[in-house]
């Protein structure tokens, strides 16, 4: 087993060289340092509220297994939103929620989103919903931009 002492750094070195080399020359390589807009708007989450990945959100959307709530302003929502998403702008959440609440089945996961890495209205809305007793509340960080980038179903009204 003494050979492990030199084999481990050698395997690591091969991995680093291959990883960085291929990433540099390929199409679709990623930068070594994450861009600000790629970072999650929700750096920490615990308990029942969590970030959700775009892939998992897309699957739940396709299966109609989650309720999507757009936390952006009404004008932004009208210009374009995730298909079938409800609109509850964060600053109007308390007053709007009374009329929208019956449309949200309690057993379904709820996914909130807004747009941009610095946007935190979806986080606040998610906290608001969690406080109201919704058990599965997720945030889709930078949701609208990433949803469009993936070419997932959208609507405008």
């Amino acid at each position, binding site marked *: 087993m003494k*050979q*492990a002492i030199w084999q481990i750094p050698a395997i690591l070195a091969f991995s680093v060289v291959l*990883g960085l080399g*291929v990433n540099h020359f390929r199409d679709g390589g*990623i930068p070594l340092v994450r861009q600000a807009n790629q*970072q999650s708007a929700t750096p920490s989450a*615990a308990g029942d509220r969590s*970030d*959700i*990945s775009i892939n998992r959100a897309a699957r739940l959307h396709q299966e109609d297994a989650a309720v999507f709530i757009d936390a952006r302003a009404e004008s932004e929502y009208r210009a374009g939103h995730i298909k079938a998403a409800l609109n509850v702008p964060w600053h109007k959440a308390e007053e709007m929620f009374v009329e929208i609440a019956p449309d949200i089945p309690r057993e379904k996961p709820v996914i909130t989103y807004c747009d941009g890495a610095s946007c935190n209205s979806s986080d606040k809305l998610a906290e608001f919903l969690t406080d109201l007793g919704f058990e599965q509340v997720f945030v889709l960080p930078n949701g609208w931009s990433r949803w469009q980038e993936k070419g997932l179903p959208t609507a405008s009204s």
Partner: protein
Amino acid sequence: MNNVNTMTAPNRIFPLFTILVRLVLGGIFLYAGVPKIFDPAGFAETISLYQILPAPWIHPVAIVLPWLETLLGACLIFGIWLPGAVVMVNLLLFAFTGALVFNYARGLNIDCGCFTGNSTDSITLLTLLRDLVFVCMSVFLFFAVRRLSSLKRP
């Protein structure tokens, strides 16, 4: 006298079983590593959702880790640099299992990201049990390789 003929049944089975575990674990690592090589962005997102690594580490890990898994898988399958590969496989599996247990315990409902960069599988008790089986296999392999390499010494 031919040594093979004097070997007891367990002694004959042990090397064969070790090879089998090596091939299975190597296949698992290849299966886990190769798809992530083709989707570094998706894998970076999965790592990010784990909320364990500091942000500056996420992309370097997303770039290098899939290659490390793939190389380790190849080492196990082809029997190259086995002592080093087996130690690394153990370290990685303990780290992966630790990360899964950590997030399962704190209730983060995120993608496992275990076998592809953009998986949609959540972390469940079944995921943890599956990883524990892999850990058992890798620990067995560690002791098996150590034993076999000590037998080879003059």
